[in-house]
């Protein structure tokens, strides 16, 4: 069984044979993203050390850890957003369906269209209306849309983000007129409108009230039918509720990775146990 799975994984993602594999073998689903020996640097300082991780397709993978452990950096490395800030760079490989997004000649802009991202702070574009926000990613990529297609995309994305019913009568209002939780769902809709394959969510609920948080957690679970989701959170309950797999990071190292159930009920590493039982972090 194990061998078969390894073979399957290998057929999807050609990994150099010399790399150690055990850390990656836990995932039992088809992989969408495969992180191989990824290290990230922040102004010369190491933020992540040799991360190996598989992200399962159509599942929610949570990344947890105390603040400053590199979980945001990791998720930003997955669509090459890490390097956007000057002085940052990353080394290693991240395979997306058999293509290394860090290979020379790969256009990060194309990668980001396939791997969308939602940030901690809701960031609707202040000069744009709700519907313009939703279609921003498409319009700014010079996608020509007819009125009908545009309406269809707006409705579809807002429905997916569970925001349609609340805003369908005020699509022309500015995006920043919405409440915090609505703004965050608008940002999710905006990310979904470009039809990414993977959705990265960097602490999407940390600025939200409990009701909005619950709403977004439900949404995450709904969305995994269509998207592969990576969820960074400092909230362990959230990881337990919403995710299928969990990775625990500490000081830039991947300490443990496994099915969420197992991580939370029977962690194999002492650090993980101490963290999830609240002894530090």
């Amino acid at each position, binding site marked *: 069984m194990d061998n078969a799975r390894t073979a399957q994984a290998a057929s*999807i993602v050609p990994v150099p044979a010399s790399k150690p594999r055990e850390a990656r073998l836990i995932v039992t*689903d088809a992989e969408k993203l495969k992180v191989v020996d990824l290290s990230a640097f922040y102004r010369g300082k190491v933020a992540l050390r040799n991360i190996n991780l598989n992200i399962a397709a159509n599942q929610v993978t949570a990344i947890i850890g105390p603040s400053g452990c590199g979980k945001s950096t990791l998720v930003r490395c997955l669509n090459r957003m890490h390097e956007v800030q000057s002085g940052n760079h990353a080394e290693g490989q991240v395979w997306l369906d058999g293509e290394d997004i860090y290979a020379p000649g790969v256009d990060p802009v194309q990668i980001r269209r396939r791997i969308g991202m939602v940030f901690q702070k809701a960031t609707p574009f202040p000069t744009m209306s709700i519907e313009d926000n939703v279609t921003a990613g498409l319009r700014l990529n010079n996608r020509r849309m007819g009125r009908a297609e545009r309406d269809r995309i707006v409705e579809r994305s807002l429905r997916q983000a569970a925001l349609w019913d609340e805003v369908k009568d005020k699509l022309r209002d500015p995006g920043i007129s919405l409440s915090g939780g609505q703004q965050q769902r608008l940002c999710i809709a905006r990310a979904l409108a470009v039809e990414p394959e993977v959705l990265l969510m960097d602490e999407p609920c940390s600025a939200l009230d409990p009701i909005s948080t619950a709403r977004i957690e439900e949404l995450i679970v709904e969305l995994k039918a269509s998207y592969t989701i990576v969820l960074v959170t400092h909230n362990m309950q959230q990881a337990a509720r919403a995710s299928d797999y969990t990775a625990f990071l500490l000081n830039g190292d991947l300490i443990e990775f496994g099915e969420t159930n197992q991580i939370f009920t029977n962690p194999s590493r002492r650090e993980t146990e101490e963290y999830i039982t609240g002894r530090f972090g």
Partner: protein
Amino acid sequence: MEASRKLSAPAQPQVAQEIVQPAAKPRRRLVPSFLGDRLFRSLTGFLALLVVLLLIGFAVVLCMQSRLSLARFGFSFFTGTNWDPVNEEFGALPFVYGTLVTSAIALLIAVPLSLGVALCMVEMLPQWIAGRIGFLVELLAAIPSVVYGLWGIFVLGPWLRDHVDPVLGRYLGFLPIFQGPHIAVSLLTAGVLLSIMIIPYITAVCTEVFRVVPQTQREAALALGATRWEMVRMAVIPYGYSGVVGAIILGLGRALGETIAVAMVIGNRAEIAASLFMPSSTLASVIANEFTEATGDLYLSALVELGLVLMLLAVLLNAAARALVLGVVGGQGEGR
């Protein structure tokens, strides 16, 4: 069994067909994204480079255009007192003198007033009224200098001649600078007019400098039992000292370079007059007055050299002021 079911899942994620449109696949771009980025970066970078080249261009052009005069007179250009276009004899000392004297008068009046206004706005007045006063002071800088000049000719100059010159002459007449006939167009008029024009600049920078003095500094002084003025002396001014010096230098730079208002009220005489009541000229005013009439290359070249001096002074003073003010105000709104 569970695992094998998952295994049989296709490598591509099961995109829910009913919601995701078929156009989902990444489209090929006509132009790779990095090309547009590189183009845009080069374009804006070129424009930024243009700003640098502009400054260099100023230096090169002014040096080139004044080379005749530079070669002919050398340093004696600045020691010569005779400015005689007819005989092609050019000594700039009278203009240097006029510039220094008018600027000195301007600073003498503007610095205490500006400090007063800045302290009043920061330490005395509530925010909302201070904002309004700051706005009015800024308006002082918005009025075109030719309007100040006009007002100087017809209002300020005559008023100073009739009301200030006699008083100064009566009580301070033993000083040579306050002797002689009273003339409306004079060093004094130009200096006073300049002071009005540079107050907004000095005030704006001083206000900004005083505003960044940490509240804790003030509270520490007050906690020692200081009065409000002692607090200003102990905490506010020392903390912002170099910023205030920078503001003054900035004001000086403005005063040196101000042209048209000065040209209108200074009388334009190429002489070193001991009395402040007498007409004179500044570096800038003589350029404004004589440039279009300058016949002959050497004459023009000498005038350009005056401009070169002005430019060098402006660059030096601005660089110094910038360094001093940045030292206090820090990265706020400047640099990164």
